[in-house]
């Protein structure tokens, strides 16, 4: 899908503690003739820039693994901000193949997009155009504050209790209210589809997991257009499958 949003004269913040990777992304973004292009070596430095009175960024591009504040902690701080930082600030997560276990948490925190390494200019522009054109809504701060985030001091992988999905995206369909005389649901069957073929609005019939078994989305999650875009982003990672099981309605 092509987005017509111009990426020129925008303001960006790149956050990565590894100087080479930070520099290569900065070089790419400099090609976009930004109004402002800042870099930070950690989540902590990024927050200082974000809380500066004159700071306004169109998008933050951040790595996962940093200290003392990692990318997920930065994302959570943005989404739960009560002060100067816009909670709906678009955030693109730079992901490596070993970060796939953390992607579920990033989805739950409404990361806008994912970009797998090696970073390419073409895909970077695609992601930026998409998230700036359609940043979408975010949920109330409290919805994010309850999401557990592995800190940079703790192990990077955490098992999740009961195998429950971490993803609680804002544009999930709300649960149906109880109605005593609910009409019978339409007959449906499940089918495995390539992510590129899944119709927006489809419902997962089985959890969406990485090849290592980490659940990224639970069964019954609604695959909104935004969610589909995010899942397609992460299929660039070796550890993420590009097929999902969804419910389809029986033809009448």
């Amino acid at each position: 899908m092509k987005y017509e949003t111009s990426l020129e004269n925008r303001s960006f913040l790149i956050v990565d503690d590894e100087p080479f990777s930070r520099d290569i992304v900065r070089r790419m973004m400099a090609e976009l003739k930004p109004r402002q292009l800042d870099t930070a070596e950690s989540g902590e430095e990024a927050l200082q820039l974000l809380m500066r009175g004159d700071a306004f960024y169109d998008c933050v591009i951040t790595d996962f693994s940093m200290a003392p504040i990692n990318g997920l902690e930065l994302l959570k701080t943005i989404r739960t901000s009560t002060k100067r930082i816009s909670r709906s600030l678009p955030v693109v997560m730079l992901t490596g193949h070993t970060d796939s276990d953390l992607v579920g948490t990033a989805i739950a925190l409404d990361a806008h997009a994912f970009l797998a390494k090696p970073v390419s200019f073409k895909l970077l522009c695609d992601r930026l155009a998409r998230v700036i054109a359609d940043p979408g809504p975010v949920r109330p701060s409290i919805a994010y504050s309850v999401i557990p985030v592995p800190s940079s001091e703790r192990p990077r992988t955490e098992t999740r209790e009961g195998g429950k999905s971490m993803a609680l995206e804002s544009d999930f369909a709300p649960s149906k209210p109880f109605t005593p005389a609910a009409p019978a649901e339409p007959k449906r069957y499940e089918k495995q589809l390539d992510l590129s073929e899944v119709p927006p609005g489809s419902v997962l019939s089985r959890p969406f997991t990485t090849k290592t078994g980490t659940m990224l989305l639970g069964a019954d999650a609604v695959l909104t257009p935004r969610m589909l875009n995010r899942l397609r982003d992460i299929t660039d990672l070796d550890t993420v499958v590009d097929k999902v099981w969804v419910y389809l309605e029986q033809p009448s």
Partner: protein
Amino acid sequence: MAEQAGAAGDLLLDLEQLRDNLGGADDATLVEVTAFFVTNVEPLIREAEDYAAGRRSGDLLRVAHAAKGAARNVCAPHLADQLAHLESAAKAADWNAIDRLMPLVSECFRRVAERIVAAGKEDAR
């Protein structure tokens, strides 16, 4: 530069992929970027060797992860994969695996750096 080092699909150093990833960078930019990679990652490899020798798995995990991301971004997939294995071994504090992998990582980085230096010289001619 491409003739000297890194034909398309080269697992050691794919400079054509890097050029493409950078949006069609010229040779001078490629030389600058790859030289910065060597300058930046060489100390990480030295640190990794020290941490492996000193049995400091947490520090080894950190530098292996950082070097891996850089290797992936410079389009040195073989080095990135080996660093990923080293990172996994460090995570598990599997010292047998670390002792086996560390020399492979060092050697692979040396070969990548040699290619980069050779390509830079070729470009300067």
